[in-house]
């Protein structure tokens, strides 16, 4: 299988650091990712492994004193890490939109929901017309498009809800409103940072369905950040597993789920509760590492049941491990572990 389309978004050796009192934290450390049109890529890992930082780096929204210390972010072949503030602003919300975890705190409490969606259109002049002040009909055109988007994301009675404030919405409706803000300018890429974590299960399913529909109808590529490997397995066609700022395993969802190669991925898989199956959930022993004081070598080795002495020395590359070869998207199934051959899951 060959990839027909050129990459929409490529991260090349992306490194994002935060200076802290206890030294520089490499929240994202040499991450490589490729996203093509229409793809859904899942970025999974425990809390604090740098998932959100990857997304915020893509949008150029790392807050100071944090910064992108190295690597490139190519949007349709153009490096966007070197753009001016103004050029970057033209990309944010237009080419790449982002939706966040906690919908209530992410909507501005002081403005009408409809106006917050309309602002996206306004900022990117999506409904162009004669220059100000001659464009009398602009607001009406924008409002019409807002109502369209609200209906598209499943907000009923859009007309009335346009004039409501965020706190008057339910959690699910707030998240739909956020998605509407993201979709208003028909972005090519949607970055979704744990979009369902704050919602209850039935609403979660609705929001996931909605994102799938958007992906299918508009070909919008999606990066879904989640710590829920089960959700990612169900929704994404590619998975990248992150640990302590690095990708430790990446590949097509089927490959990664059916044939996990990194002990951390295996551990995550054992944490997924399955309905009907009365299997004990096995948490991964140990704690999420402190990024300011990472061990030498493999950051996972202190928690790894297969760890050997050699694991805490040197640097390990992502190595091809899968059966689908390098062409499986994102360079095929690869994992970052020293003694890969030893770590095959027992068959069956």
């Amino acid at each position: 299988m060959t990839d027909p389309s050129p990459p929409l978004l490529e991260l090349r050796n992306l490194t994002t650091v935060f200076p802290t009192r206890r030294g520089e934290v490499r929240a994202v450390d040499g991450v490589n990712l490729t996203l093509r049109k229409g793809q859904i890529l899942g970025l999974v890992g425990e809390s604090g492994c740098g998932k959100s930082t990857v997304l915020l780096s893509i949008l150029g929204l790392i807050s100071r004193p944090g910064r992108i210390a190295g690597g490139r972010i190519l949007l349709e072949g153009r490096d966007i890490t070197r753009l001016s503030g103004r050029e970057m602003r033209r990309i944010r919300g237009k080419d790449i939109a982002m939706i966040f975890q906690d919908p209530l705190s992410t909507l501005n409490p002081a403005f009408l929901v409809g106006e917050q969606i309309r602002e996206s259109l306004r900022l990117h002049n999506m409904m162009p017309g004669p220059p100000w002040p001659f464009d009398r009909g602009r607001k009406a055109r924008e409002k019409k498009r807002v109502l369209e988007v609200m209906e598209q994301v499943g907000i009923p009675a859009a007309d009335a809800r346009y004039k409501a404030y965020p706190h008057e919405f339910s959690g699910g409706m707030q998240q739909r409103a956020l998605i509407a803000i993201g979709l208003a300018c028909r972005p090519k890429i949607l970055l979704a940072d744990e979009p369902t974590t704050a919602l209850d299960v039935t609403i979660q399913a609705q929001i996931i369905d909605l994102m799938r529909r958007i992906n299918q109808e508009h070909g919008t590529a999606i990066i879904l950040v989640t710590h829920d490997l089960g959700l990612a397995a169900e929704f994404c066609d590619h998975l990248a597993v992150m640990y302590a700022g690095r990708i430790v395993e990446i590949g097509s969802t089927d490959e990664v789920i059916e044939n996990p190669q990194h002990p951390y991925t295996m551990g995550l898989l054992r944490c997924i509760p399955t309905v009907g199956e009365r299997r004990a959930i096995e948490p991964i022993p140990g704690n999420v590492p402190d990024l300011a004081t990472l061990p030498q070598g493999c950051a996972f080795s202190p928690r790894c049941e297969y760890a050997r002495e050699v694991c805490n020395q040197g640097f390990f590359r992502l190595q091809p491990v899968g059966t689908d070869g390098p062409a499986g998207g994102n360079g095929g199934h690869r994992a970052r572990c020293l003694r890969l051959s030893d770590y095959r899951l027992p068959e069956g």
Partner: protein
Amino acid sequence: MRLVKVVERLLAAIPIMLGVAIIVFVFMRLTPGDPVDIMMGQGGAVSEGEIERLRSEFNLDKPIHVQLGLFLADLARGDLGNSFSKQQPVAKLIGERLPATIELAFGALLFGLLIAFPVGILSAVRQNSLLDRLSMGGAFLGISMPAFWLGIILILIFSVNLKWLPVQGRIDYDANLQEVTGLYVLDSILTGNRTALVSSLKHLILPSISLGAAVAAIVARVLRSSLLEILRSDYIRLARAKGAGEPRVVLVHALRNALIPTVTVVGLQVGVLLGGNMIVETVFGWPGLGRLVVEAIFNRDFPLVQGAVMVYAFTFVAASLVVDILYTYLNPKIEL
């Protein structure tokens, strides 16, 4: 709908005002010092009979609960009584001084806000920068420096040395201002008197700065700290992710929310300013409420003190009502 609520709130203020009236009445009478003695002390030798006559004229010979009853009955009719020391209606005396105080309060508020907003916003946006440190140091000075002291320094620099601005009063005598509202700047505009406008503005500048410096400092600090908190919030991150530029993020998305705590503080400052400031009024020869009230307290001029306190109480009630109304606009989660 909203009007009904406003009226409700005003009615709810009546018991508060009543409580204030009773407390100030009782406390004035508990303070040592007798109004008639003080008046007579100024008048030289007077007979016992004269003193008795004055006592009964002021109702001071009656039991305290009867006096209170008379005071409240007058109050209910909107009558604040007559001043002991000035022998004139309290309402008239206060009415004469109120416009000067309002004008100065407005000037001080305007100066305070004009300084506080840029300073508060810039120091929040550039947190820990030199500008931030300087302006927060300045704010500390503004809060701790007595207004009269600042006033004296300003007079020395701008009036005595540079001779740019007048030392005393509200307007030059030869400006020929025809009074309409008693607010001289407004009256100059209403009557189209350019000389009076320039003169009254010039007189207003230094006292406004003296009083407004503290307002500027207090408001700038509140604005800065609430902006700092808001700029870290999720919805600000979303505004940036939508592609909004930094000026829009700060001035629209953040400022709108930062105004909520700021308005409370500004409302409180307005209440304080409308009380008048005796010392600043004395330094600038400004005929405002502050001096009138302090004199009234020294003279044990019960009706005048009571009347002034009622005006203060009403000002605070009104200011907090205005704050609450503004709140409902700024914070959609709150209803009146």
